[in-house]
């Protein structure tokens, strides 16, 4: 079967640049559960009368988890102007199938840190008859990133990590970069290394 023809040329990617804070991360964008109406945004970088994004309230139910981390560059320096986006299934492993929005955005802080509050995703089907381990799709945007970098955050100690069809494609020595570490009950840490020692695995698909 011949593949579909491209009749139009795709628009190229460009960097999000350093000045997206008054446009993309709305207040509460990093809170997919509800309770922190400011999480994700950095309104202090915009004069108050020019911050026009409106907060979002959520009413998802379920056990919330925190996902925290830090983004560092090839010199080990924090990346203070990144935007982290997540896309995930709901606790039953369904995408977009419930009132749970599944989309989150967090601007990094001056120390390169980011923080999400969300529901732990359930396991979603993978290729063939496989079942994927629970994971978040993670996109990283920022100054100096001409294209989005995409990775996945899996959860340390979870069921199904050994048989996950995507982790299986990653060289064993680098798989640990895709594991969010359990800091305490309900709190996970997922650092993102853009370049160099311990470089996070990034995907294309």
């Amino acid at each position, binding site marked *: 079967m011949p593949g579909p023809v491209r009749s139009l040329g795709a628009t190229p990617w460009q960097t*999000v*640049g350093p000045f997206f804070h008054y446009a993309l991360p*709305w207040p509460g964008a990093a809170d997919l559960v509800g309770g922190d109406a400011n999480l994700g945004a950095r309104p202090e970088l915009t004069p108050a009368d020019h911050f026009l994004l409106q907060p979002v309230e959520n009413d998802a139910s379920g056990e919330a988890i925190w996902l925290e981390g830090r983004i560092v560059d090839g010199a080990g320096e924090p990346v203070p102007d990144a935007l982290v986006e997540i896309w995930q299934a709901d606790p039953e492993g369904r995408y977009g199938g419930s009132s749970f929005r599944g989309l989150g955005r967090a601007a990094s802080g001056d120390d390169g840190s980011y923080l999400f509050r969300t529901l732990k995703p359930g396991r979603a*089907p993978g290729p063939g008859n496989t079942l994927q381990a629970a994971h978040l799709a993670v996109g990283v945007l920022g100054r100096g990133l001409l294209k989005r970098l995409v990775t996945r955050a899996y959860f340390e100690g979870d069921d199904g990590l050994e048989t996950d069809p995507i982790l299986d494609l990653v060289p064993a020595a680098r798989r640990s970069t895709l594991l969010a570490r359990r800091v305490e009950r309900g709190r996970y840490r997922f650092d993102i290394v853009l370049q160099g020692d311990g470089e996070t695995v990034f995907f294309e698909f």
Partner: protein
Amino acid sequence: MLRSRMNTLPTYLPEDAEAQPPALYPEYRSTGLRAPKQPLVRIPQTLTEVTGPAGDWERLGGPAMADLTRQHRAEPQGQRIILAGRVLDEQGRAVPRTLVEVWQANAAGRYVHARDQWDAPLDPNFTGVGRAVTDEAGRYRFVTVKPGAYPWGNHENAWRPAHIHFSLFGPAFATRLVTQCYFEGDPLIPLDPIAGAVPARARDRMLARFDLSLTQPAWALGYVFDIVLRGRAATPMEA
């Protein structure tokens, strides 16, 4: 017995590598410490990649802000323009009901951002942020002012060409796009390492073009900027 109807979801063509900038482009200095050194790991598209956020965009970030000249007490300084176009995929299908987010500098080339320290005036009547959702035919339309060029520290006498940032989701996590829209004929474009990181054959896909039929008499110049997201692959996914 009736066979239960199988739900299918589109999968997406591989990214057109000849249209995209590389991660490392030394002329754009900030890529130096931020571009990964390891090759990307190719994975099959799963439900994770072929689904995406949809609908209910007003709940996320607020209602549409399609007229950037009416966000404050008076009209902003600068050349009023209409910037409109369609969001399509590589097979020419309209991409309906998807969020289009834009942001830009003011007419003097200054961003309303604490980290923009360039000595050009802020405009109390201009923020430079817009949001719109495409209609059934994939159309969007903004009213704004033409942004100014501005200097930056990338190299000696470096100036960014006038541009408007665009962010789009499309139907799936795989179709996400963030780009910049430039203005046809701007002499700064060939000197700019961010636009220049895109292969030459695809660079003009980032150009808004003056359009007389979109131009509104005695009111605003019209510019057309169509955006093309990844197209569908031949084989859908059962879900």
